[in-house]
């Protein structure tokens, strides 16, 4: 954590329609020192992303209203949200989904179950990569 001020902590948008999972990750992310926003479906995710401009988005792929792939595609096609890293989360582990997720613009792909601490590690890795990319 480079910045101790709570307002300057990275904001993570957790998108998942399964409440237990979303709230679990949110709770652990907050416990780990991140600011967290939540969304239950793709539409909410887009609204939140445009409104809050989070530092990173954890995107479940199977979502109501707008699925994760489509939401990601729209985020990556919008100048406001283009640079925000998106970590795809899915319980569907069949091959092909990860490729599809990358095709939609996801920066990383995590298969559920993913323990909260592993997810936090992934988030930190991506943020660090982004910091490096931005500083260049």
């Amino acid at each position, binding site marked *: 954590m480079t910045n101790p001020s709570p307002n300057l902590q990275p904001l993570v948008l957790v998108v998942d329609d*399964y409440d*237990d*999972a979303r709230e*679990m*990750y949110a*709770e*652990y992310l907050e*416990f780990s020192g991140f600011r967290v926003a939540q969304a239950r479906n793709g539409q909410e995710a887009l609204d939140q992303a445009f409104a809050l401009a989070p530092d990173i988005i954890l995107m479940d792929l*199977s979502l109501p209203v707008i699925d994760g792939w489509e939401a990601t595609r729209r985020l990556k096609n919008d100048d406001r949200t283009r640079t925000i890293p998106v970590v795809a989360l899915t*319980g*569907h*582990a*069949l*091959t*092909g989904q990860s490729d599809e997720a990358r095709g939609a613009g996801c920066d990383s792909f995590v298969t*559920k*179950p*993913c*323990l*909260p*601490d592993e997810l936090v590690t992934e988030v930190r890795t991506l943020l660090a990569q982004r910091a490096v990319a931005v500083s260049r």
Partner: protein
Amino acid sequence: MVSPSPLPTAHATSADARLALAEQLLTCDAARGCARAVVEWLAAHAPSPAVACLTRDEPGGRMGCLASVGLTEAHHAALTESLDVHAAHPLAEVLSQAVPRYFPHEHAPLPIPGTEGLFAVPLGREGASAVGLLLVWVNGPTLPSEVAWVAAHAGPFLARQVTSGPLGLGGGALFRHIIDAVTDPVLLTDLDGRLRLANARAESLLVASPDASHGRKRAVHLNQRVFTTAVASTARGPVPGVSWREVPLVDPAEGLDLLFELVGTRVYAPDGQEAMVSVLRNVTDLGRATQALGESYRRLRATEREARSERHRLDRVLDSVADPIILSNPTGGAVMMNEPAEKLFTLPSEGGRAAQRRVRSNDAVFSSFLANLLDTGGGPRWRGQLNMVDPTSGATRPMEAVATKVLGDGGELTGIVTLFQDRGEALEKARLLERLKEVSTLLEARVQVATAELAEQNEKLRRQAIQLEQASAAKSQFLANMSHEFRTPLNAILGYTNMLLQGVSGELTPIQRRNLTRIDSNGRHLLEVINEILDITRIEAGRMPLHLSDFGIPELLQEVMAEMDPIILRSKLTVSTHLGTKLPQVHSDRQKVKQVVLNLLSNALKFTHEGSVNVSAEYATASSMLSVAVTDTGIGIDPAYQEKIFEDFQQVDSSPTRAYGGTGLGLSICRRLADMLGGRVTLQSSPGQGSTFTLHFPRRPRRT
């Protein structure tokens, strides 16, 4: 004696003077008049004081003076007398030699005062004996040109008059007329062929006047030579009398080749010498006719030969036709037949009574067929079906016969040509074709039935395949969905457990921690089972791609050992690794290799209670194969189960009371993954003696 009158020297003889003499000579029909004209003309135009013309009265007779100028009676007498007395008189010599001769004054047979000498010039036709002499008294040994001219022109005239001598003057002319009237050439010659007498026709062939054209002279000269040779050879012939001989001569006027038959007769002339009478008969036309006849005959022969060869060829053509052909006369009798027809209508050489009967039957059938054509007299053609019989074999030969009338120029019937066509083969072919069609139809029907059945079967198979595919897809989908449905709550269970264990909700009592750890452990096991089921599903659905990369085996084993470390520590077993020398870099799917090795090692740890587990890696250079073997000192596997354990959901002990848990998918997955790497998993084991599972895989995948 008349003294020589002076000659008008300046008066050169003109062409007119010569023409005048020529005209005078033409009108003369008697020797004497001719001689007189010549003598007077010479006396007037040549510078000569005296001129005389001597001739014989008859062939071989006495010389007499026909006309003279400047000679006295005494001179005449002396001349005639001397010629008569001396047989070898110089003038007689000149006559026989037929060459002009000059006598100087002192040697002259008859000197005339006032002249230096005398020229004696023989007279006559060219090529014939001289008939007379022209005596010209001159003043030098040079023959005056006028004399030469006169001698050349008057000679032939004089000769014609003189040679008609035997019958006297009147009789001579008559004789002349008679022989001139003969259209065939008639001649009197000596035995050497020298001309003494010739009629007009003979003269036209053998005599050329001095002013004749060069071509005519040549032709005459040629004729003379041929004729002379012919006469001479006839005269030398063994038998005197009439002889025949063919003489080819040239028509001097037309230049045409003529052929004469020479009929020669030896006669005795009044002077006692033998002479030859030759009558030439023109056989040119006859020769031509003979020639033409020969030509016609030759042509006839050629035509005949041609006709024969034509006939021969026709025969061969007819024989070469495979179908019988018969030419019949108007009454129906066979005139000619080709070989195929002969086979039907003539008795074969070894034909018995049966063959004879068959030939007769064929004849009868054919005759009745022809009778139609002969009786009706209507159409020029008649067609019919005849059943012939092969005389040799007795086989029936159905024939189609077409008979055609052959008409003469007047429209009359001259013959009938009948062409047969063997229908046997055609009928047989038609029959076979019919059979073939039947069989074909039958076959077609069968094929259609079979095709329909096949199509039905195919459709069934296709449906089954679709159903299978759908079932398989449904199974994969079910498993995938189930996996997802398991994972979602499991994710929450493991997640919250993890969080609690990390103290997110505050510090835990040791008992709470132990229980949470058990929840975590069981959750993980459940996850493992779900992952294995998912792996199988992925592999079966073909959704497990190879991700090839270069990596080293030692590093990979190190990683495996590190991951298994917690379990190894718990197992209290001696776990060692052994790396073979020269282990190369590998190009393969690292994740899959690792998964297999992890699986084998975890199996070994699970089924080994004491002793050791060893992981070793080797490389076989010859086969480029790597092998990673996991050897344990565990319970071992009965040979009966050694193959079975690689199958899905199979375990050595699957009873409800089994001692070991697990889905029974681990080895099945290992084998499938090894397959994907182009390798295999082998097992060496016996119960109670431990087991060695080995993964063999190529350094590089064989299929790119």
